[in-house]
């Protein structure tokens, strides 16, 4: 309820809350106003003025996220044609469809920041931009499909929920939609895993094997520990939590849920430290992460090549019917 007794002072140009319209200010002052606005929790829209550093940081963040949704389709897609029941087939197709939909939402956000979709695909397929580590690994069986849909999605959701209040409002709104849609995926994944974990001996063994192969990439997924004060994405409130906070959150929720299925997590050092109030774990292999995200992972080149081929095969459609807008 507005304070009825407050008389709003007449604000001069230097005190207005919307620095975007302070065209007459020198850049440094405008930058300072913008920074104060964002660090106080203010929001930024696509059409607002923003300093280059902010625009670049948001674009890079969103672009990597979009790339990851697009590439993340591929490991699961391999199993679309092999789903063993009608219901699993429908669930998996819907899940992969959602990921394509999320890619669409995220590329749209990035496009409105000034980079064309075709340019982003060019950069991704040429290896100039990155996608998340987990999508560089092979899937060897149906158990992997369950494991990815459950734990990889879970780790992603932990990160995504923390982005729902991003300073860049179009991204924040997209994250809220994505989080709402993702809740189904985890249930599908967990259902596949629980079914197999409690199924035949061969199925249980397959799930245990999948866990052993995916645990390393999962622990690397949120990234190495960063220093909060030095993290520019945190400074600009593009994201709100550190890598370590996200990893801890993931462990807290999912370690008990994995163990209750009788599965053994392949990290003998993993334990809850009551005094510190954190999980202790074997140090993830950061060299592996670095190699993988620079496209030296087991499936990096094969998947990029697959995408290049699909893009080439559809080129005629983009030249005749779905013509990309010419660069402004």
């Amino acid at each position, binding site marked *: 309820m507005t304070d009825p007794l407050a008389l709003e002072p007449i*604000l001069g140009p230097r005190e207005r809350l*919307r620095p975007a319209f302070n065209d007459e200010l020198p850049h440094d002052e405008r930058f300072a106003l913008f920074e104060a606005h964002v660090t106080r929790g203010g929001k930024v829209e696509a*059409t607002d003025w923003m300093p280059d550093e902010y625009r670049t940081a948001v674009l890079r963040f969103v672009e990597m996220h979009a790339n990851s949704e697009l590439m993340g389709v591929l490991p699961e897609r391999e199993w679309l044609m092999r789903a063993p029941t009608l219901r699993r087939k429908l669930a998996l197709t819907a899940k992969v469809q959602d990921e394509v939909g999320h890619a669409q939402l995220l590329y*749209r956000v990035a496009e409105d920041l000034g980079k064309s979709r075709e340019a982003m695909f060019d950069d991704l397929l040429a290896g100039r931009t990155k996608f998340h580590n987990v999508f560089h690994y092979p899937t060897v069986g149906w158990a992997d499909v369950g494991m990815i849909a459950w734990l990889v999605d879970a780790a992603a959701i932990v990160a995504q929920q923390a982005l729902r209040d991003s300073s860049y409002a179009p991204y924040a709104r997209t994250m809220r939609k994505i989080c709402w849609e993702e809740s189904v995926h985890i249930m599908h994944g967990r259902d596949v895993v629980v079914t197999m974990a409690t199924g035949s001996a061969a199925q249980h063994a397959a799930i245990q094997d999948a866990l052993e192969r995916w645990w390393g990439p999962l622990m690397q997924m949120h990234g190495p520990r960063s220093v909060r004060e030095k993290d520019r994405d945190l400074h600009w409130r593009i994201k709100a939590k550190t890598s370590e906070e996200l990893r801890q959150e993931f462990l807290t929720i999912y370690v008990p849920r994995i163990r209750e299925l009788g599965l053994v997590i392949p990290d003998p050092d993993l334990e809850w430290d009551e005094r510190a109030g954190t999980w202790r774990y074997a140090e993830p292999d950061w060299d592996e992460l670095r190699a993988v995200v620079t496209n030296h992972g087991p499936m990096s080149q094969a998947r990029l090549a697959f995408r290049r081929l699909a893009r080439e095969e559809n080129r005629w459609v983009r030249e005749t019917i*779905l*013509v990309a*807008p010419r660069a402004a």
Partner: protein
Amino acid sequence: MSSPPELEAWEVFRQEKAGDPMRHGGSVMAPDAELASHYARELYGRRQESVRLWVVRRTDIVDVADPDLLQPPLDRSFKKPGGYPMRDKLAAAREISGQAKPKARSK
């Protein structure tokens, strides 16, 4: 040979249930209104989450965001219910009349 239309952005507004206002959902790229409407249905309605959609070419939208127009600085409390505080005056009136404050009506 006429050149085909380019993809452009179409804004999608959606109605969650009958009687609700149209709310902005997001945007789709499409070469024309027909495909734009299909894509809007897919991205903002395939889960039966909407009962109505509006699809508008982005370039047809007039964006008004100037704070001088929308948030002008001088007092405008006379335009809002909160601009008429009467608590003290009513307390004085009740003292004079000896009447208690009327009970709040239940909704």
